[in-house]
């Protein structure tokens, strides 16, 4: 009984969005520093929207388009974003821990200083993204296309990168394991002299 109560409480807290904030987001395609935890924002065109500083943790973003959206300093941890389009969106300093973004489009995104720990970003399109200073611990990037992207000052040793496309991906001042380094070279990535292969 106590266990059931706990599960229910956790469930309620994950989807405790502010109804007024959700209304504003849907009507104006903009909601700054809003509480949208667990909100349903699926299958909507939010191109050019501004959600910076908002809490979208565990929100449902599947099938939506956030082309050139602003998610700087936003929390998208645990959000459902399979197949979501973030084309050229800005996600700097955002919390993307555990986001479910398999098959999503992150082309041209700005991910500086974002936290992508345990994020599921398999089979995604991530061409020309900027991962400078991003945290990628246990991030799953298997099968994704990361060509032309930029990794600067990252520890990638625990990032899953099997079958990732790394053509002309730029690595500078990063730490990778031996397998990743071999894969990167084979894929014609650009590794500068500050890359550490351990």
């Amino acid at each position, binding site marked *: 009984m106590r266990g059931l109560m706990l599960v229910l409480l956790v469930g309620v807290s994950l989807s405790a969005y502010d109804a007024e904030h959700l209304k504003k987001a849907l009507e104006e395609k903009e909601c700054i520093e809003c509480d949208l935890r667990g909100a349903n924002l699926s299958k909507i065109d939010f191109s050019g929207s501004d959600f910076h500083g908002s809490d979208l943790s565990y929100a449902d973003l599947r099938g939506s388009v956030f082309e050139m959206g602003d998610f700087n300093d936003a929390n998208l941890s645990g959000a459902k974003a399979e197949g979501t389009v973030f084309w050229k969106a800005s996600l700097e300093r955002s919390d993307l821990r555990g986001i479910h973004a398999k098959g999503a489009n992150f082309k041209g995104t700005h991910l500086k200083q974002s936290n992508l720990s345990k994020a599921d970003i398999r089979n995604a399109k991530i*061409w020309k993204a900027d991962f400078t200073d991003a945290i990628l611990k246990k991030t799953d990037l298997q099968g994704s296309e990361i*060509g*032309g992207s930029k990794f600067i000052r990252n520890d990638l040793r625990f990032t899953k990168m099997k079958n990732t*496309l790394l*053509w*002309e991906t730029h690595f500078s001042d990063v730490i990778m394991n031996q397998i990743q380094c071999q894969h990167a070279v084979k894929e014609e990535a650009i590794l500068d002299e500050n890359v550490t292969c351990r």
Partner: protein
Amino acid sequence: MKTLFLSCLVVLSLWGGTIQNDEQFKTAVASMGSADKLVLMIYTTDDCPECAYMKRKVFHEKTVERYLSQNFVVIEKNIHKSKLPDGYDYFGIPTMFFIDKAGNKKETIIGSKRAQPFLSELHHIRGIK
């Protein structure tokens, strides 16, 4: 009158015309002679790494290059610099259109592919009657 004339000029400059009237397409078809090939028309931009990957890497992978040269004629249109033919809209770059000699669109591929899946697609498209 001057405004009307200017409006007409603007409309005409945006109008790409039919694929059959496209100079690059006509040249591609002429280059085929009697060979039964398809035109692969790829839409690109200058700042598109995916486009560069297809053009510089995938198209030149040994097996892809051989199959392409035997069965296709490739033409490129930079969407910011070229007039685009009517009926060939795009939703992403690169977009590849496969067109027969008569100007019928047979298939469209959006985005890049690695060499082997791309080669499989080419085989599939070549098989479409």
